[in-house]
């Protein structure tokens, strides 16, 4: 059964039904169809979970594979297949898809037909990207995502929506075309080489098969690896976004409608980190190791800078947006620890960030719909007026800042373990980010929910209704589930992470089980200071 294709194209089918068979004034029908589509897609994708074998290794690790010839003369195949990492991200996508659709009922009141159709098309693009095991196919899906998101920000966004939409589109496009060049360089290396640069090819049959490149990656000469890595880096780092390529993100988040922000934070940003973990690390091991330092430094800057900028934000949504820069810095640094612990934490943190930040964006949207402002100074004392809302917000904020027993803690802790194992200084700096994260979230909470309820406009606010609670509760359940019992999630990514570590660091598994950290004494002192 072509299960991955079914999951990928259900949303597109729903979008086409909405576009061609529903009158645009019949908004009720449009919402029902969109919700049904997203829900069906989620339920179908759940089928993957029990049928996925997390223990399978080798070629069997890539499950539910589908392979058809697409452009035979170029060696392009329509090749789908997932491992545990992609599985979790696909489940996250279909899950957040439902949340995004349902959360739009009260937020979107104009051009609903186009809105829901675009939201569903976007979902097809995202799922397809995670499923693709062919570079050409991957690139197509990757670019396909841009257009619906551009329209979602541009049509239904806030004040500066045009600026934000175009900035989003151009930034990500510029990155992805450079990635295309890297893909081409890989392609020619595998095929005939690049005679002009005296780069001999392997003479294999032309192919875009990602698995093939996983095999031959280590054969690529380091200089070529470096250039290819650079192209991938621009493509993925802009999407993550890593400092200093993050400037499109606050604009896009602030201007996007709530559902757009949810999808953007929960899934689109993961495209970048997913790209690193799926392509850059296993295919370009030498370049990865060579570039650890610059990337780690950028990630650390991102962690601390994102947190500091969050501290001073006046706008709640912007605060959450900058907190994403900080959290994605964690994901990146965990990944570049290049040991199983770090990468596992990094992958789990991708999921966690999707859930927590998605929830925070949704919650910001809830008050925005009531008050049409997101300025923190407009609020205060909401805990009295909206107790349910305050509770939900607290859980989401705690999850985002990494309180034990909630999901964020598991991710950040595992990342820190992995990073500390590689270099204790990095872990020390990253830990500062966690402290700052607690600071900006708790301060936000304090300003919005505590204190006197003195703004008259807030005194008539209605608490969360059943639909909003119904959306939040599954998110909260997930936060607690991952926080208390993360084992099934770790189990799913165990094998693929091990596979990636073997690819990127061939010596890792030959060495002692846990290499002794080569931390000089000076660094120990620094850590001690932080702990004080």
């Amino acid at each position, binding site marked *: 059964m072509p299960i991955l294709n079914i999951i990928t194209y259900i949303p597109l089918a729903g979008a086409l039904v909405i576009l061609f068979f529903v009158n645009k004034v019949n908004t009720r029908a449009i919402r029902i169809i969109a919700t049904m589509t997203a829900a069906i897609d989620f339920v179908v994708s759940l089928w993957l979970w029990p049928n996925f074998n997390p223990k399978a290794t080798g070629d069997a690790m890539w499950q539910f594979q589908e392979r058809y010839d697409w452009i035979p*003369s170029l060696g392009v195949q329509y090749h789908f297949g997932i491992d545990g990492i992609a599985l979790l991200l696909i489940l996250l996508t279909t899950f957040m898809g439902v949340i995004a659709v349902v959360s739009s009922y009260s937020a979107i009141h104009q051009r609903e037909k186009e809105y829901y159709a675009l939201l569903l098309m976007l979902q097809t693009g995202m799922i397809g990207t995670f499923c693709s095991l062919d570079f050409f196919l991957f690139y197509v899906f990757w670019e396909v995502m841009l257009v619906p998101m551009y329209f979602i920000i541009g049509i239904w966004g806030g004040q500066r929506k045009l600026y934000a939409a175009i900035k989003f589109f151009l930034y990500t496009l510029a990155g992805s075309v450079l990635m295309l060049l890297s893909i081409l360089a890989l392609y020619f290396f595998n095929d005939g080489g690049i005679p002009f640069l005296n780069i001999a090819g392997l003479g294999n049959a032309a192919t875009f098969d990602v698995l093939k490149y996983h095999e031959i990656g280590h054969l690529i000469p380091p200089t070529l690896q470096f250039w290819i890595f650079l192209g991938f880096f621009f493509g993925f780092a802009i999407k993550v976004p890593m400092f200093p390529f993050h400037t499109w993100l606050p604009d896009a988040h602030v201007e996007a409608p709530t559902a757009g922000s949810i999808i953007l934070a929960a899934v689109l940003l993961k495209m970048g980190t997913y790209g690193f973990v799926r392509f850059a690390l296993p295919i370009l091991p030498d370049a990865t190791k060579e570039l650890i330092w610059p990337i780690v430094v950028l990630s650390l800057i991102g962690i601390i800078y994102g947190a500091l900028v969050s501290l001073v934000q006046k706008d709640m949504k912007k605060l959450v947006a900058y907190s994403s820069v900080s959290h994605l810095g964690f994901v990146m640094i965990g990944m570049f620890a290049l040991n199983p612990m770090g990468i596992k934490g990094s992958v789990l943190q991708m999921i966690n960030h999707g859930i927590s930040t998605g929830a925070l964006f949704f919650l910001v949207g809830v008050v925005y719909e009531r008050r049409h402002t997101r300025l923190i100074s407009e609020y205060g004392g909401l805990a009295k007026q909206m107790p349910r809302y305050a509770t939900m917000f607290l859980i989401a904020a705690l999850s985002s800042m990494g309180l034990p027993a909630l999901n964020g803690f598991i991710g950040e802790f595992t990342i820190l373990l992995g990073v500390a194992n590689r270099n204790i200084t990095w872990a020390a700096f990253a830990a500062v980010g966690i402290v700052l994260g607690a600071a900006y979230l708790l301060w936000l909470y304090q300003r919005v929910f505590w204190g006197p309820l003195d703004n008259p406009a807030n005194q008539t606010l209605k608490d969360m209704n059943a639909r909003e609670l119904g959306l939040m509760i599954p998110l909260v359940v997930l936060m607690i589930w991952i926080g208390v019992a993360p084992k099934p999630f770790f189990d799913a990514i165990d094998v693929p992470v091990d596979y990636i570590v073997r690819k990127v660091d061939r010596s890792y598994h030959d060495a002692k089980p846990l290499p002794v950290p080569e931390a000089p004494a000076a660094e120990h002192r620094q850590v001690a200071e932080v702990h004080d």
Partner: protein
Amino acid sequence: MTLSDTIYLLPELIVSAGAMLLLIAPVVWRRVGQRAAKWVMLGLLVVTAASIVYCSWAVANVTPSAMFGAMFTLDAFAIFFKLLFVLTIAMIVLLSDDYLAGTRYSSWEYYSLLAFALCGMMFMASGIHLATIYIGLELMSLSSYILAGYFKNEQKSTEAAMKYFVLGAVSSAILLYGISLIFGVTGSLNLITISKAMSTLVTNDALMFGIMLLGAGLCFKIAAVPFHVWTPDVYEGAPTPITAFLSTASKSAAFAIFLRIFYVALPQFHLDWQNVLGTIAALSMIVGNLAAITQDNVKRMLAYSSIGHAGYVLLGVLSASEMGIQGVLVYSVVYVFATLGIWATVLMMARHEYGGERVDDFEGLHRRAPLWAFAMVIFLLSLGGIPPTAGFIGKYFLFAAAVQAGFGWLAIVAVLMSAVSMFYYLRLVVAMYLRDGSDAEVVSAGSLKAVAFVCLVVTLLFGILPSPLIDQVKKSSGWVATRATMLANGR
């Protein structure tokens, strides 16, 4: 040459005869209306297309590599371009029909000139002798000078024609001078003889100068920087369907001879011309795309964008590889369909005094004409090279050819500039979808709808299932491509 060889000239003969018929028809049959001209022209194009297909079938049995004293050939490459020309001209006829009906200029002469231009382009595609190529080029150019100034009572149109003619004549002279220098050194005008003569030559200043002048003349025709200055004014001033003609068919023809001359006659010196063309390509991409950003007039914007596109196609030409040729052919096809689709939309807007020349005129089009707006988005994405449109496949080939040939820096310029190009293409999308304009309903002509529909289907189809196009191109790159393969093996 025997009389039976004439059959290979059948398409050209038919077009010439048809062109003359179109010219005298309104004189002989005085009562025939203006609208009939379109049907005569379309009929002529159908017959021509049929004769080309017939010739290709006849050639398949005899493989005449060179006919008429080695001045003319009918290989798969020529047939590919001839069919593309006929198809393009057919769509331009459909674009022109409605536009001409609103004016008091004669349709008959207009279509006759288009047919003459077509004849010239077909000779260009088939020429393997610099004289044939030059005469074909001049026939096409002279027809297009007149067509650019066809609205003789409008100042802009006349001005466009004047500029185009003067600069075009100078560039033809430069081209001719280059040809004469090459003839002086090699003693022949036949491309194959030239390449044989060159294999025994060491680098020769007169020859280099000749190649340079030849290249400059050709770059004028494809509007590459720094030979582009005529483009915006001519594109803006010319009647819109003629602008569509200049930006598609006329350019593809120039690229056909570009490939033919440089690959067949001058492969030995590819290391010399590659870097020069590389500079020109980079300049065209940068100048064209950056200048397009600031344009508020859609015709001027597309003129600058077409300069950028000439730069992309030059990547295919300069890479001197099979992939490069295939890239040029694929891109010619996808570019024609995307561009003509856009011109159809512009003409549809121009139809009811909405303007259609300014970006602002497109405001709110999604409400007035949702399907047109959707189609326009697809065409713009295709020009920007975003999958799943055909433009992506075209750009893929060109960028791949550049990377393969070791022109990584050019590929980087190219991809970044195609990101820049999305900026101004998105301006139209913004106007159509994100702004509210007038509510006046749009009534579009059937012929324009037909063109847009065909372009839309082709753009999406070749974007999602490009294999048929790629297979055809692989067959059609013919022995021009084998020259490139020889080159690759030689280096």
